[in-house]
């Protein structure tokens, strides 16, 4: 049986067109963009072209708004710490949704240790931010609020424009982590009212090792990594030209193909959801309609997610889980707890993220494998007897 890879939120293959486009920058055009000779300038030119493509992809004011980083975690750290520390005279409060990525939450916790107030805003059972509570939590001291465009674990898309209006009534900046959303749904940083936006290259079918932070003109930020002053001094270190050039091309391709690809994936996603929910005691996690086109996430009672992942892998189907046993901390996913699941419920999650390799013909084998996996693990589980009675 052919492999069915349904873990695109964790890692994506690089698009072959992207690879061909960027390949010279590993080899013949290997220059350092800071070098003034012709080989350096060639690299610099390609990097600036990539900057322009990414600016266009998110409808930014101009290409100078794009700061390249080594990845999305770095971009999130730069946004959170960079904005909070640079604007400390305006206030010492930061706010985030309860379902942010750890690369937003952990820098905020660090700020909290250093005297900032840090407020988490809850979400409802579908993952949508509680806007009333957001409004009540933002004061004139709130220098940064961070809310993701869409969540990677439950696929829920947040009402970013409404959030932006609320944040800007009293607060200073809105940071949006768009790693999961970019390339799946259109993003317009100007219309959406976003001050800082994080992107990841690999999540656009670009090479790993590059990310970008959009910084709206006029937004004040300080560097987190200090050194030779690359990227307007905001991210020192020699740029990963191959990954950056690839990211630019990946963004250009995504701009062109995104709507067509999303329209192709939505019926596959919906069929998967319908088929898998026909399993007894299975539930959708996240929002039923405000959901990323490539995202289907579930939980099953009485079984555990790491076992699901391993069992599905035996069918050569790769999935993800928010189970505690699969994490480094042995804590269940904070996202699943934030949508109100009990610990024992959060343990039994399975996340499917579709991609360009996914076809309608995959639904049947995935459904069959899921059925058999759930059935086998429930037969082993002492908990499944409880609701069967």
């Amino acid at each position, binding site marked *: 049986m052919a492999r069915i890879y349904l873990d695109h939120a964790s890692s994506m293959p690089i698009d072959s067109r992207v690879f061909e486009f960027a390949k010279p920058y590993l080899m013949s055009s290997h220059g350092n963009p800071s070098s003034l000779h012709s080989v350096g300038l060639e690299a610099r030119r390609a990097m600036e072209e990539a900057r322009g493509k990414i600016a266009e992809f998110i409808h930014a004011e101009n290409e100078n708004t794009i700061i390249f980083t080594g990845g999305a975690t770095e971009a999130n750290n730069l946004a959170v710490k960079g904005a909070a520390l640079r604007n400390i005279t305006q206030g010492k409060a930061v706010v985030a949704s309860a379902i942010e990525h750890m690369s937003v939450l952990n820098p905020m916790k660090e700020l909290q240790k250093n005297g900032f107030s840090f407020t988490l805003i809850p979400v409802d059972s579908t993952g949508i931010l509680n806007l009333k509570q957001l409004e009540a939590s933002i004061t004139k001291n709130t220098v940064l609020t961070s809310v993701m465009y869409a969540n990677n674990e439950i696929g829920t898309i947040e009402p970013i424009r409404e959030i932006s209006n609320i944040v800007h009534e009293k607060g200073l900046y809105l940071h949006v982590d768009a790693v999961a959303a970019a390339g799946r749904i259109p993003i317009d940083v100007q219309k959406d009212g976003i001050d800082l936006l994080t992107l990841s290259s690999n999540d656009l079918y670009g090479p790993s090792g590059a990310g970008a932070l959009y910084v709206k003109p006029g937004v004040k930020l300080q560097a987190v990594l200090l050194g030779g002053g690359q990227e307007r001094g905001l991210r020192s270190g020699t740029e990963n030209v191959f990954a950056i050039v690839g990211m630019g091309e990946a963004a250009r391709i995504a701009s062109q193909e995104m709507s067509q690809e999303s329209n192709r994936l939505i019926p596959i996603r919906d069929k998967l959801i319908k088929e898998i929910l026909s399993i007894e005691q299975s539930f959708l996690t996240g929002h039923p309609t405000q959901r990323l086109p490539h995202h289907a996430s579930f939980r099953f009672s009485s079984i*555990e997610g790491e076992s699901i992942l*391993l*069992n599905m892998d035996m069918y050569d189907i790769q999935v993800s889980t928010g189970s505690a*046993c699969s994490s480094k901390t042995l804590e269940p996913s904070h996202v699943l707890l934030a949508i109100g699941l009990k*610990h*024992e419920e959060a343990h039994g999650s399975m996340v499917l993220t579709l991609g360009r390799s996914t076809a309608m013909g995959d639904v049947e084998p995935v459904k069959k494998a899921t059925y058999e996996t759930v059935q086998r693990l429930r*037969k082993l*589980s*002492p*908990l499944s007897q409880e609701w069967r009675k």
Partner: protein
Amino acid sequence: MANVGYSKKVMEHFMNPRNVGVIENPDGYGKVGNPVCGDVMEIFIKVKDDIITDIKFRTFGCGSAIATSSMVTELAKGKHVDEAMRITRGDVASELEGLPPQKMHCSNLAADALHEAIKDYRNKKQQK
């Protein structure tokens, strides 16, 4: 090279666990863990002349929780209860050709469930 993922033996026991199920009217029953923590194991034993003649388990948990449960039943079957009482988490892990460090508490649970079942058997025997 550092251990990456589970050993073949763990995966083999995970995919084909031995002694799965329930024993009606067991001579000993042990249950450990908590659904909140993500691991629940129960072990049923049949004992004759202090020898474990039959053993079954059911487990809710991760791959290593299932594999260690399966392994502990294999190790205990046919043994004298005193000997089975001495089976440790280390024994279970080494029989499985090792476990990732963060998974060591799961194998602890499998041995604990066995020990609980034996204690239950001894209590019942004393009451007779």
